[in-house]
């Protein structure tokens, strides 16, 4: 687990009108699990599988409860753009097709870093992402997601 203030600064510096709430805050998003989770590191591919509902289990085998920021939040936009190269409307479209059958559940929505942190501390099977590196030892960063250089760019 690592704290990186520079990320926040960089986020603040490069903040744009699109992401006003944490403009200039960070250039890295931290994917975090409960410290009790045996998982220590996640590849980007495994992360995509978890967040697109392709799988519901961690690579180690344990069930995963995937947490997400609210639907139109800048955190979520930055996360998916960086993770998949897709903007939110496309991600939402993806989910709306899967919603239709009810077979695949989208991640549970948690509003804000604080609530996310609280959920993560509370649930050992949960996984989420934070704009700030967690300071407490109850959480573990398994993946650091570098923000896309130019927002809205397609992969």
């Amino acid at each position, binding site marked *: 687990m690592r704290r990186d203030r520079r990320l926040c600064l960089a986020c603040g510096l490069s903040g744009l009108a699109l992401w006003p709430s944490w403009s200039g805050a960070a250039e890295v998003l931290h994917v975090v699990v409960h410290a009790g989770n045996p998982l220590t590191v996640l590849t980007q*591919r495994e992360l*995509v599988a978890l967040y*697109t*509902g*392709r799988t519901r289990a961690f690579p180690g085998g344990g069930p995963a409860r995937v947490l997400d920021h609210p639907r139109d939040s800048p955190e979520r936009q930055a996360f998916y753009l960086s993770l*998949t*190269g*897709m903007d939110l409307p496309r991600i939402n479209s*993806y989910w709306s*097709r*899967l919603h*239709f*059958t*009810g*077979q*695949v559940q989208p991640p549970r929505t948690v509003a804000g870093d604080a609530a996310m942190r609280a959920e993560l501390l509370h649930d050992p099977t949960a996984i989420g992402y934070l704009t700030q590196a967690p300071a407490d030892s109850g959480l573990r960063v398994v993946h650091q997601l570098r923000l896309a250089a130019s927002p809205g760019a397609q992969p």
Partner: protein
Amino acid sequence: MNLGWPRTLSLHGRFVGLVTLVAGVLLVLAALVIHQFTQRHEERNSLAALQGVVSAVEKTAAIGAYAADAVLLQEIVDGLARHPLVGAIVVEGGKGQRLAGGRVPEAAMPPASALGADPLPPVDTRLASPFDMHEQVGRLRVWVDRQSLTQRARQQAQALVVAMAVLVGVVLLVFNQLALRLLSRPMATLAHELETMTPGSYRPLTLAAGHERDEIGTVVRAANALLASQQRALAEVAAMEAQYRQIFDTTSAGIFVLSPEGRLINSNPAVGRLLGADESAMKSLREGHFPHTVFCDPTAWQELVMRASALGETLSADLEVRRFDGSARWVHCLVSVQAEQRPEDRGLVEGVLYDVTQRRRAESQALHRAEHDALTGLKNRNHVEAALAQRLRQAQGNGHSVALLFVDLDGFKAVNDAFGHDAGDAVLVESARRLRGLLRRSSDIAGRLGGDELVLVLDGADAEDPQVAELADRLVERLSMPVRLGDGREACVGASVGIASFPRDAADAACLLRAADAAMYTAKRGGKGRWRRAVAMAAPREVDHAQ
């Protein structure tokens, strides 16, 4: 529909039949090609349409495959299955496992042999991960529904073929009507008019309107010109025939034609007139053997015919014919035998008869007059001299003798003076008759040299023959018998006869006459009423034979 077909086996019927047949065959070939074409066309169209449909669901299907959402995939599959083109659908995951499917692929793909074509390949779409296009998360394969495709192709082909058949049918009908109107009907009319036309009944062919300048017009004009000229020629021939017929019927010459066997084939009225034959007689003449019935000497006729046939010329001869009333007539007969021309005419005998009875009669009368004494009917001097010379030539040739009895009537002048010349003539006529009664054979001659001098030529007799002496006796006796005159009176003359014979007494006719004349004078001097033989040659010795 009455198409007004011309009569059986017409050119039009054959033509239209053939055209229809060819059109039908072409239509069948076209139907086969169209069927193949529509099949291929439908296959291409179906694949393209399927491609479009599959493209529409590709993204969603990729998401379904990525998220392994069987329900979503099944929804997609069911949606696709509702499309009429779609036969079978299979969605496989990235590892080839079957995620969803619709219908049975085998049912969508009938055996290749049923269609004679390779089964259509499915529309095969690679499903890429929505988040990583390089990762293949599945495969969507959609097959075309062969049955419905084939059915649609067949329906299209049928519609095309039906449309084409209707078009061909309409074109054929129009074509038929045009051919009928422009060609067949005028031709049929023309053929009918020509067929019903008989020689002599000339009626110009009708030229249908609108055909003045085409081939039919040319044919009609040419035929009309030909018919007109033929009509003129026929009229000329008929006129000529009428003339000939007139000549044949009215000529005084009898014209007839006989078969080689001698049966009468044809004759003109003059033959009947010549033979005095009415209708029934002519009929019997036609049934019998003409030369045998008609000619007095059929052999002469037969020889004439044979000579004419052998020479190939027209020969003529005078022949005697028997009329039906029994009398005989002389005809001059020209005969020719046909040798050439048509075979059925070969050997026909053509004869022309002229009645020459009058001429023959006149000729014989003239001859008679030239040879005979008009009063007594005995041969005259000229004839006696000529005939005697002829007999002598004959006798010289065969060694016979000819005796000449020279007669002079005794007392004839007295009868003339006493009873007149008529009585003298009567005595001469009666004496001539008695003289003729003594002729023995046809070659003997009884003649009158003039006045009361009569001669008797006995062919083949010699003055010394006893028969001659006996005949001379009878001659003297007969002529001495009284002659009854027309008025009941009787005249009486006697006869002195001198006899000489060739070659005993003379070498030629003149000498013989002179010798007999001299012997007659000897008889006169001896007392008349007796005969004397000439004295042979140089030493005449007259023997008195007193009566």
